[in-house]
């Protein structure tokens, strides 16, 4: 099975993430070389409920994305992404299919 290299991104907003990726040259990778999953804003149940009693979702800070590369990120790429690269979440909101296989 092919080995991939996974990265977790979190920026202030979508534009921030895309600008950093472009600066790293990751916005122009051939599709076969990368897979990008824009998760966006993460919503969680909030303290308030709607008239039917369902919790009203509230957004968490930040704009999230997952990035999967066939080749390990180079040092210049990693440097360009420094402002949005985050450690692997302990409880990720989104994973790639088969990640646990």
């Amino acid at each position, binding site marked *: 099975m092919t080995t991939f290299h996974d990265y977790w991104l979190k920026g202030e907003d979508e534009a921030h993430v895309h600008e950093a990726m472009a600066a790293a040259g990751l916005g122009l990778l051939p599709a076969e070389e990368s897979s990008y999953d824009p998760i966006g804003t993460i*919503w969680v149940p909030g303290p308030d409920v709607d008239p039917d009693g369902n919790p009203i979702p509230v957004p968490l800070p930040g704009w999230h994305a997952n990035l999967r590369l066939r080749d390990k990120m180079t040092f210049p790429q990693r440097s360009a992404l420094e402002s949005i690269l985050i450690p692997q979440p302990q409880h990720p909101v*989104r994973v*790639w*299919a*088969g990640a646990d*296989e």
Partner: protein
Amino acid sequence: MTRSIYSLWPWKPEECTATMEPDVVSGLTATASGSTTINLVWDADTTAAPNEATSYAITRSSDGVTYTQIATVTAPAVSYSDTSLSAGQTRWYQVIAENCADIANASTAASATTQASTPTAAWTLDFSSGSFSGATLTRASSGTYVDSSGYVASASTDVARLTHNSSGTRLGLLVEEQRANTLQFSEDPSNAYYTKTNSSIDNNGGSFWTSPANASDAVLLAQNTSAGVHNINRATSGTDTCFSVFLKKQTTSGVGRYATLIIRRVSTEYYHATFDLDQGTVTQSAVVGTAITATDRGIEDYGNGWYRCWVRGTQASASHTLYVSLATSGSPTMTSTGESYTGANTTAGVYIWGLMREANNTAPTSYIETPSSASVTRSADLAHVLDSAITSWGDPGALVIHFYPPGQAGTLLSTDDVANEQLGIQASTTTAARAFWSSGSTATGTIGTGVQKAVHYWNGTASSFCINGGTVQTGTNNITTFGNIDYVTFGAEATSSTTGYSQYANCIIRYIAFYSGTLSSSDLQTITT
């Protein structure tokens, strides 16, 4: 008109009782059958005795002027098959009635043209059998498909998904865009992630039931004896939603046979569809309120009693709740959370497995398991073949694709766009398809059910499109340097060599071929029939 008859005529034997020739043959028709045969039929002889026809001379012409006898048919037979022809030949025929006294005048001529020979593809990819070869497919995650036993199975990264129907019959190559299942614990409805209302999850004493994946991991959504709705539900967020779930009947009537899926915004705004899990049909669906639009629903047979049921729609507000609700009939009296009734016992319900919500308002894509408290993304299939691998690639040429009706509007097949010259075949909706090229497209043709066959033919200045042998449509294209094409993409559109793939049709591709050289409209119809 000249005619050469090689019978010895007239010659009247002593026993001949006829005194004059039979009536002229009437009602002659000629019909082509395949590429080598033309069948002749004419009316039965009505000449009064003793002058009735005793035989018929069959004459044939290649120009409608000069006829030569090719056979004799003994009366009362009134048909003849000329099986000595070649593809695309037009022939004229006359039939002449004869008796022992004389010969009648020739019948009115009838003509037919044998079918043209089927053009031969220079290059083919057949995904309907065998292993995947001759093309490149990558996918940066695993993905599910239906295996040759009819079960939901998982293909590892970069492995082509050659999928089947529930009977295990190969359908073809599954090509889908990137999608995520935003529900968690998709095969564990007992998890507290899901809210159960007047219902419980029965796991068969820990033994579970066999799921569509042929694993012991399906459970029963069972009612309780309370009055009210009986459902499992989960709040979620997002505007576009496709909610799908695998369900199986427990009984053949009442609760255990029917289930309702609901996309609910609030108590006055929801969309619901009820499914008969005995017959595999949608028995009722409706939109309540105005908040949920562009709705649709469906049910698909997964074998062994399992059905994948789904509803989809778009809503302006982000938050909504998805329900699987038990029902007593196929036309329950609905509330926004299901039918309200009093459960007769705590054992009736429907088997349930594989809950999935996609943030897209299209038909569901292949199932994505979410084994934990995270949603899961299946990466896109990237499928293509290099032009250098395609025999005789160039102008004029034709790309043919056999496919099943796609899951969403998109591109079924396309070339890349080097020098801004691109062509391909799109499904403009799930019921129509067309050819497209850099500067335009044809009008649409109709997609039916089952295997669809479409062709895009170009000759450097014009494109033609035909689907399922229908009317050939044409348009002027700007393809002048087609040799610059690098590869042909399946099931999507490669917008450039660097920015990736788009316009996925989420479809199953059965066969792809390239025809080199000049093709007529008749050829295009023949190769798509």
